[in-house]
């Protein structure tokens, strides 16, 4: 069994004339947390959507847990869990009903469903609101319900798009600990974030995408070596993707 759980091969996506993702090649191994960084509109979410099967690539391929997402979608999807940047859920279901629904979709063994749901509700502090309609949840609660839904079938691959947005510090810490534990148990975690501190502290390897192309990839040490003496991820990121110039900032603040 291969230990490469996510692999993109010359992955590209065009929207009309616009190239959103341009021949991206990356691999994420079992037990690894991979941070995917990039400025707004760089192609992060489009890449993620192709990995989880929400978008068909224009060219190239994605393999998840050894299965091609385009030609073997069921096997690839069964192995992965996804947390989108916006927690759009069925607002007229309760969290418990949502988790049960997702468990049925992923064919989780019947005997394990209720126990698994209870565990996840407790983990994400949703037990008290488990039978309330999601309609009444705050953004943070919806985000946690979305995370619980992604974990209900115990996926080998977890893909998260900005998972800590809208979460309080306690919940954000919970996510970080959870992702680390999942990786330690052999799952591959693919995580996009704008919070560079999270990427720097949590991720084993980091990929930086800019204007659709992967401009750098490696461990923090490798990125530092590429960054010509720049010590922080922020400096490396800005030097690779282009940050605001001092003059422009001064002009705005005048």
């Amino acid at each position, binding site marked *: 069994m291969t230990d490469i759980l996510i692999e993109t091969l010359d992955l590209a996506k065009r929207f009309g004339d616009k190239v959103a993702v341009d021949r991206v090649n990356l691999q994420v191994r079992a037990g690894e947390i991979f941070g995917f960084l990039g400025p707004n509109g760089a192609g992060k979410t489009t890449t993620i959507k192709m990995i989880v099967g*929400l978008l068909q690539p224009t060219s190239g391929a994605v393999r998840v847990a050894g299965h091609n997402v385009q030609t073997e979608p*069921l096997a690839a999807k069964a192995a*992965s869990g996804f947390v*989108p940047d916006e927690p759009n859920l*069925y607002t007229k279901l309760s969290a418990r009903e949502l988790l049960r629904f997702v468990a049925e*979709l992923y064919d989780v063994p019947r005997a394990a469903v209720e126990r698994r749901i209870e565990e996840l509700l407790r983990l994400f502090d949703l037990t008290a609101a488990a039978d309330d309609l999601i309609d*009444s949840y705050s953004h943070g609660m919806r985000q946690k319900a979305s995370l619980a839904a992604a974990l209900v079938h115990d996926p080998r691959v977890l893909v998260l798009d900005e998972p800590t947005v809208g979460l309080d510090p306690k919940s954000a810490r919970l996510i970080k600990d959870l992702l680390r534990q999942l990786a330690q148990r052999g799952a591959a975690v693919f995580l996009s974030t704008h919070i560079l501190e999270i990427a720097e502290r949590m991720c084993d390897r980091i990929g930086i995408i800019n204007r659709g192309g992967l401009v750098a990839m490696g461990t923090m040490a490798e990125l530092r070596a590429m960054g010509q003496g720049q010590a922080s991820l922020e400096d490396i990121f800005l030097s690779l993707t282009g940050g605001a110039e001092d003059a422009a900032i001064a002009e705005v603040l005048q």
Partner: protein
Amino acid sequence: MIGVATPRASVASSTWKLLWLRVRIWTSVLRHATVRRKIGTLVVAALVVGFLAAAFAGSWALLSFLRSPELAQIVDLTQLLEALPTVILTGAFLTILVTSFGVLLQSLYLARDMDFLMAAPIPVRAVFISKLIQAILPNFALLCLFGLPVLFGLGASAGYHALFYPLVILLLACMTFAAAGLSAVLVMGVVRLVPARRVAEALAAVGAVASLICSQSGNFTRTMTFNAQQTTQMMDLLSRVNAPWSPFAWAGRGLIGLGTGQGATAALGLGLTLVLAVAIFAVTLRACEVLYHTGWSQMQAGTPRRPHVRPHDAPRAAAARRPAFPRLLPRAVTALIIKDARVLRRDLRNLSQLMTPLILGIVYAAMLARSGGQVDPGRGEAPEWFMQGAGQMMAYGNIGIALFIGWIMLSRLGMMAFSHEGRAYWLIKTAPVTPVRLMLAKALTAYLPTLVIGELFLLVASLLQRAGSSVMLFGIAVVALALAGGVGVNLAFGVAGANLEWEDPRHMVRGSVGCIGSFAGMAYVALAAAFFLGPAMLVPLLGGSAGLGQAIGVVVGGVFALVCALLPPYLMLGRVRRIGEVG
């Protein structure tokens, strides 16, 4: 430190800025629209102008005829003509008062830009006025479209003073503002008590049911004939509405006074109307300061009431809640059906659309019961074959109505099966569910409730008609098969026009596909009725037995229905994989 100038925005300038922003957004949308859409907009504009001109010319001609001395010798319609402005302006006021509630609720509380507007240094009155104007403008435009040509026609036919025309527009606007103001006060009051979103859902359900009941009540009144006494009563009512003491009549009487050169009547009527409208609007603005901002803030800060579903009661209870059929179906299919049933049942906006066929069923069943299921022989001069054919049609009429009711249900449950997933569709798309299973789940979600309602209606109608058991059994088979075909047709168009970005359930399916799909669904029902019922009615007329006709009908119609049930969804399987993808 950045020095920020404190804005000293007046209500008028802020209102103007907010309204101008809307104009710019509208023109920007038009500028960036496709050529086809631009041409469509121009065509619609030309049609509107054409309609206005035609309605004005028609009104002018009709009202001139009603004023003619020749007609006056037969019937004096002066009272009716003088009450016309009052009737139209009163109608406009009441229409705006009733219809504004929903749009104002959406505009004042549920619009997406409210956070931005309330956080900006803009007077709350300006936000309120601009939102009010935006909300009532479409309804006001409709009133102008139908009311102005008649009122202008009245002026032209009687040769009224030139001031009559601008004052008609001014009064229509004033009464619209006053009515919308009252409606806004009501909205602000209700939202203080019930969450705005809940009010909107309930309103959608009540509105749909009420409008359907209104439209269907025509089926009962259509057969009524007006006698002389009722006509007199109507004229009395008209005179009461146009009585000088009635505030509704002040504007109308003032306009007539202006037109006929009665200066005092004109000044009094128009003056009183304007003062009253301004007073109502001033009170509304005052109320908005007290209620609007605090109500909106309360909506943001208040802990929403948590709608509670049946609490969890151990896995055993969950298993007990599962329907009897899950073992026959894959788990994902069962899960999708249960999820859809819950979501549809809990969203009042969806429920309102599903109430329509139920009400139709009750109305038509009552009509059938009233007719006794017998053909009226009239004067007995109709030929035998005609009466026999009419009898056959009557016998199978309830099947036709059951199919019609099913068609209405399927146009919601089938055609919107994918769209109603909305933005939560990613949960299904990222799950290991094949398009075939997804299609099967959606088909069953649409088919099962439609089948139950259709068959139930058929049974009740057949019992009311005292239909024979063979007709009843034939009907049960026809409804079951024909509805299955209807599911296939509607589902296919639902896939083609799936829109996951809707906010309002009325916009679930993309415009052109939804329109074509409705026609296709209607055409399917007509064809299915012809294939199933045609042989059943024709064979006895040609001397064959009724049973033989029904058997041929079931075979011919059944083949047609099964092809429609399977082929369109099969052809759309490839598109299911692409639902929710752009580009």
